[in-house]
């Protein structure tokens, strides 16, 4: 006990400090690289045409922001991701829960879902365009497909792996079906569900790029294509940087929103400060 207390004191202080120090440490490498490249272009070692220096990228972003174009593209992409993510999550959660909870449904449904999962999702693109047209619907559908599979698998796997021993505790206290779901199953699957949501969101961001490559007139993916066709690498890098920021921010929002629900978890990673 004493030993633990001795060790705990400095670690608490260190934890407070490292809450700021740790992200800073992670920024060190990209900042150095950016600075180095800026310097290399400035000193004339490279003309920086194909790989624009950071100042040029920021100038491009600022320019896009001033004209109001940037917020238009961001809004478009974000709303596509949001719609696709929502659809994929709802479908994945419902079907995953049904398959996980009910053996007959799993035997009926799961083989088909697994077979569909084996198809690279981009292969659906031509069909979606034929079925749903070139505009928003087909794009949202593609994103939803990407989000669906990890959520479905995560939910089903989480329900199947709920500890029978803990379910027995519920039986001993004679919980009704709904009470068993609410008081035992939901909390038990929550950690795996959050992971599934985050993986799903990551795929959503991946697929929005693919979706916006197929004939969009707005969105960050369009900025990428536009930059390539007009030979503006700074615009491409700018779009990439914004993708990175948005992806990380939305992932962080999920983490932030679910953290209070998962405080009980005995997570090794949290204490070691991973991610």
């Amino acid at each position, binding site marked *: 006990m004493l030993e633990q207390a001795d060790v705990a004191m400095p670690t608490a202080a260190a934890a407070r400090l490292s809450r700021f120090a740790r992200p800073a440490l992670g920024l060190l490498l990209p900042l150095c690289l950016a600075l180095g490249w800026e310097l290399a272009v400035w000193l004339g070692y490279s003309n920086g045409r194909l790989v624009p220096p950071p100042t040029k990228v920021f100038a491009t972003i600022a320019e896009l922001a001033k004209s109001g174009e940037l917020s238009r593209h961001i809004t478009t992409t974000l709303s596509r991701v949001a719609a696709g993510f929502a659809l994929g999550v709802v479908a994945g959660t419902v079907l995953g829960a049904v398959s996980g909870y009910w053996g007959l449904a799993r035997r009926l449904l799961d083989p088909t879902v697994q077979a569909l999962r084996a198809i690279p999702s981009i292969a659906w693109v031509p069909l979606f365009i034929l079925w749903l047209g070139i505009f928003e619907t087909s794009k949202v559908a593609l994103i939803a497909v990407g989000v669906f599979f990890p959520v479905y698998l995560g939910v089903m796997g989480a329900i199947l792996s709920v500890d029978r*021993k803990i379910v027995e*505790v519920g*039986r001993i206290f004679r919980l009704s079906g709904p009470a068993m779901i609410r008081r035992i199953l939901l909390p038990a699957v929550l950690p795996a569900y959050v992971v599934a949501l985050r993986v799903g969101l990551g795929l959503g961001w991946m697929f929005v790029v693919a979706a916006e490559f197929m004939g969009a007139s707005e969105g960050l993916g369009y900025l990428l294509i536009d930059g390539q066709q007009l030979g503006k690498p700074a615009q491409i890098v700018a779009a990439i940087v914004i993708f990175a920021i948005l992806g990380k921010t939305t992932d962080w929002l999920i983490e932030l929103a679910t953290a209070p629900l998962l405080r*009980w978890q005995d997570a090794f990673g949290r204490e070691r400060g991973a991610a």
Partner: protein
Amino acid sequence: MLALDKVGKTYPNGVHALSRFSAEIKLGEIIAIIGGSGCGKSTLLRAIAGLDRATSGTVTLDGTAITAPHAKIGIIFQEPRLLPWLSVADNIGFGLSDLSAEVRREKVTRALARVGLTDKANAWPRELSGGQAQRVAIARALVPQPEVLLLDEPFSALDAFTRRDLQDHLLDLWADTRPTLILVTHDVDEAVVLADRVLVMRPRPGRLFEEIAINLARPRDRNSAHFDNFKRRVLTALDRSLDRNVPDSEAAANAGEAMWW
């Protein structure tokens, strides 16, 4: 009164785990069930708890047949099985959800104090030691005031000191409301220190082999000659249940320290 009438269990895979087990257990009695590994002790306890149904015979509590978990029957397993997402206090109050929050809080507070874990009320289960976690499990099973409390090797995962502590603590808690205790154990010492009667089981198929009444006043002195005497009798019965030679007294005394798996 809890009545077991020719209780038998054959698992779907054909294992005949339990055969014609009969016993009558009065309210407030402490019964220890002891026997070699795989002789159907857990099977019997799960049938009494209503978790699994017996394939023959009946379990009745005060005349009601037990076929599903019953409000008056609680169980404690070898592992504490606390819900990791609930605080210690909420775990203890888990079985009280039909009471008002106020009554529940009061009962939980009292139970926490009773098992000496008041300072852990808001801790997570992962922050407890093995012995503390098992005390929470005992408190959780006892707060709804069951008439029958089943314990399936509840202390076997704990070290010898903690185990002895918890045995004494269990007796202490039992004295509050005097429920029936049915304790499965492989520890002869534990059976003799706790039980009014020790039921020795015999494997393949599991059945009752011998019953030994422990006529010792409580609190029992683990070092007394009488205690040793009862221990030796249980050990002898155990050895015969496993068709081993009856050991001489010295071997029996040594074996008393060992545990029966």
